[in-house]
């Protein structure tokens, strides 16, 4: 009876159905916490647990979906290219700001992980949590983290960013539109960018532009900084 599980179709269909349900719930509630990706992952984990299906069976199809992580990263060049004039007009603040954000990210994550007594493998998994998922997965592998934990941390971070960005910017007097956009993009990648787009066109564009650049800077800095600090 469980024969159908050994075809890739099972994992692919389950993922698509779960994602559709996630998008539906997200649209109905309109809440950042009801993130479509988060809901779909919880649904799939629930389904596999209830019907006692192994993760290996799911991954026969799952691996086919994961294949697209490569092309999905390459394509991040498109949003950067579309904002090229905006990037050129603000080149120095963008690069310095994102670099400051990435250095803060890596050092503070290592610092707080040590403070909370997390093992080195968990710490390494959290380090790339503020960059976009496909790049975060690669950085995680590179520095000895566990990609699945990185993905979970990336989603939590994105939701925190999307929910708290307006309050944080108000309390800490971040008012400049370019600064708000880049601050959101550098701290909470694509999920935060959905909130930045609500705040305004400039904020959204700057946030979207930041995703790929922050990923690139983190790729370059994370292995070096982690060698010094961990």
């Amino acid at each position, binding site marked *: 009876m469980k024969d159908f599980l050994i075809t890739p179709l099972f994992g692919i269909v389950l993922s698509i159905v779960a994602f559709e349900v996630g998008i539906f719930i997200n649209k109905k509630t309109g809440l950042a916490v009801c993130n*479509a990706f988060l809901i779909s992952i919880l649904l799939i984990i629930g389904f596999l647990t209830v019907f006692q299906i192994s993760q290996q069976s799911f991954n026969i199809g799952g691996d086919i979906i994961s294949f*697209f992580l490569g092309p999905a*990263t*390459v394509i991040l060049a498109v949003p950067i290219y579309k904002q090229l004039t905006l990037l050129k007009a603000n080149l120095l603040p963008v690069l310095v700001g994102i670099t400051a954000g990435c250095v803060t990210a890596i050092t503070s*994550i290592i610092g707080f992980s040590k403070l909370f007594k997390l093992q080195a493998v968990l710490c390494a998994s959290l380090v790339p949590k503020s960059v976009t998922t496909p*790049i975060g997965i690669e950085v995680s592998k590179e520095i000895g983290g566990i990609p699945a*934990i990185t993905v979970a941390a990336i989603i939590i971070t994105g939701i925190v960013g999307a929910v708290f960005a307006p309050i944080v910017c108000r309390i800490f007097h971040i008012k400049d539109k370019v600064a708000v956009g880049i601050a959101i993009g550098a701290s909470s990648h694509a999920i935060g960018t959905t909130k930045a787009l609500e705040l305004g066109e400039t904020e959204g564009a700057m946030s979207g532009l930041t995703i790929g650049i922050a990923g690139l800077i983190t790729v370059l800095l994370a292995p070096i900084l982690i060698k010094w600090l961990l």
Partner: protein
Amino acid sequence: MKLLRQVGIIVGICLLGELLQRLLKLPIPGNVLGMVILLSCLCSGLITLEMIAEVSGFLLDHLAFFFIPAGVGIIACMGLLRGKWLAVLGVCFITTVLIMVVTGHTIQWMQRGRKR
């Protein structure tokens, strides 16, 4: 044929990125190199947005979907995370706010310098 060619361009760039990474033994992942290659090709006009419009639109619109299997992998990490959830959430929350504040103020400080 149009879609197949678009897929070919993007997958070809992926392959080129992986190849460069292995040949030059770079510390940058192949897919990130691919992103840099595509950006260079777009900037130099070698590839236009129209040449990859449909496939890049499809990938960008459904980006989160492709991360699902990676996220489901968390099942295998439950043991490692037992008793650590609160600390992990704490690190995620504190550092996200910190990054936002530092990045925002760095840029505002630079913008003030520029306007003067």
